């Protein structure tokens, strides 16, 4: 009887404290992750795009750290919710960021997966995206209608491992918009 009672209490505690997974309303779906090289290591800038089907405007969070993991940790201390990388569709890599270690970390990451599209930026990725009005929507449109589709994280990593370099489309600012420049090979 005591065991049943304690079991019931434990169940109630579990249910009432909500310590079961992460609730969707506390989640910020990151759609674009911009990675730049800074003095301490890496700076991540996450764009959520419009949340709640247009009801809440998108948010932009930044975090810095000497590795991708620490930068992500720093990123997650910002904002009103947990920035989840589960639905990241675009990865924009700034000047000077070593591509292979970054992609390897993302592919093996618990959340990130390998389907996000890769873009390169001459200069700081965060600055290029900051100039755009709706970077998420614009990047997704560029991916769909901008000619040959850019490689995703996995394609990029495979190419890097086989050939030592990968051709990535360069993202260029165009006023409040973004355009696609030519491909640039690099490692």
């Amino acid at each position, binding site marked *: 009887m005591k065991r049943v009672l304690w079991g019931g209490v434990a*169940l109630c505690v579990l*249910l*009432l404290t909500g310590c*079961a*997974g*992460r609730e969707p*309303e506390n989640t910020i779906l990151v759609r674009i992750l911009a990675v730049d090289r800074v003095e301490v290591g890496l700076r991540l800038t996450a764009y959520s795009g419009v949340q709640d089907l247009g009801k809440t405007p998108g948010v932009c969070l930044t975090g810095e750290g000497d590795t991708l993991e620490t930068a992500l940790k720093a990123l997650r201390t910002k904002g009103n919710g947990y920035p989840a990388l589960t*639905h990241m*569709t675009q990865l924009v890599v700034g000047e000077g960021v070593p591509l292979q270690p970054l992609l390897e970390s993302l592919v093996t990451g618990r*959340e990130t997966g390998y389907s996000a599209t890769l873009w390169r930026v001459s200069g700081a990725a965060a600055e290029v995206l900051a100039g755009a009005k709706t970077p998420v929507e614009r990047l997704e449109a560029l991916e769909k209608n901008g000619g040959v589709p850019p490689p995703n994280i996995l394609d990029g990593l495979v190419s890097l491992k086989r050939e030592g370099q990968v051709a990535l489309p360069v993202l260029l600012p165009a006023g409040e918009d973004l355009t696609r420049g030519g491909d640039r090979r690099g490692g």
Partner: protein
Amino acid sequence: MATPKSPPLFTVVGMVKSERVNDYVLRPMSQDETLARVSMGEAYDLMLAGALYNLTATRVSTVDSAVAAMIEGSCLLLFPGMAEGLLCSVATEEKRSVTAPQNEPAAKGAMDSFVESLRTNTSLVRRRLRAPTLKIKEQAVGRQTKTPVDLLYIEGIADLKIVRQAEKRLAEIDIDALLTAGELEQYLVDGSKTAFPLLPYTQRPDRFCTGLCEGRVGVLADGLPIGYLLPGTLGAFFKTEQDKSDGWMVAAVTGILRYLCVLVTLFLPAIYVAAVTFSPEMIPTRLMLSIIAAKQNVPFSTLFEVLIMLAAFEVLQEAGLRLPASIGQTMSILGGLVVGTAAVEAKIVSPAVLIAVALAGIAGYTVPNRDFAGALRLWRFLLAVAAGVGGLTAVVLTAAALLFHLAGLETFGVSYLTPFAANAGSQVEGHAVVQTPLPSVKYRDPTLNTENRRKQR
């Protein structure tokens, strides 16, 4: 009692039909001149030889058997100076007439169903199975009720070991009263450690007879308008008589659909909880955004929301069952539509949860057996809680536990997971899930250990 010179007549009021007593017993006794002239002893012999208009007149020499027969609806004639009495069957036949089966309707099939009278039920079976090999063995169960319970099987087909086991189980039942289905089920099979029903039952005599022809053993009890088929196997709970009436292709698709619906009713709420809270990457971005939008301002966790809705669904269903049909329907509409919509608008639950739970609930109604659907509902709660605590990993572990539990069940020596687990790797002839054309099913299910396996050329 008749005239002073006549033998005293005893009946149990309410168990006999007065007209029969008057016409078959009292009238010949008062009007037959021969009977009026002879002594009591001679009258006894004449009555036994047919002086009464009654179909049967039998001797009785003990008080116990006389009382038992009177309770069954006989009248007792006692002759002073004689050690024997005479029993004449004048039982009342007040009983519910045979009607269409309420719980197992058939669009194309017989429209009769079992009733509370055991004799009517055995006659319904006899009308269909005319073979002399159909055997009916009767036992009385219940110290106070002495309820007649019949075991039915076809000699030469059914496994006699199962018959003997069932007979033994029935003989061992030592209870005061056998009045409800549960009192028979719980003593006939040991189902105390499972929520799953171990005895498939049917209201339909045609389905009952199909079961007997498959090699199963039937059980009919007086007072219960259902027939049980032993042994209980998983496949038996998913069959309906309609499957054979439909074209085999339609029946095959319906069969697949039924099993899919079981998966939906069991796993949908759990997978929703696990996917939303633990594995959002499973959900497409647009849908995830929609779920996030719907979840804003809802005060409860996703797990709690799902449990509230599952509980509300159970409450509505239970309330609907306890009310008369017309009110029950109104209440279901009120509960399902009005309260559901209001709960979503009041941000008590999110619409996605409502949809997931409603789909799971509706899918559960495709299971033909109500007891089996009830067991699935219990496990649905458990899976949802597991999903909320440990995500998909916990769901998979709980599903494995369910499979483990089912694999450990058996009735009368036959595995509960038949036809999926007890065929020793051989192909099940006929249909486990997908029905094949009936002419191609030449043999009976081997797991039932039938004496004669071939059922057609």
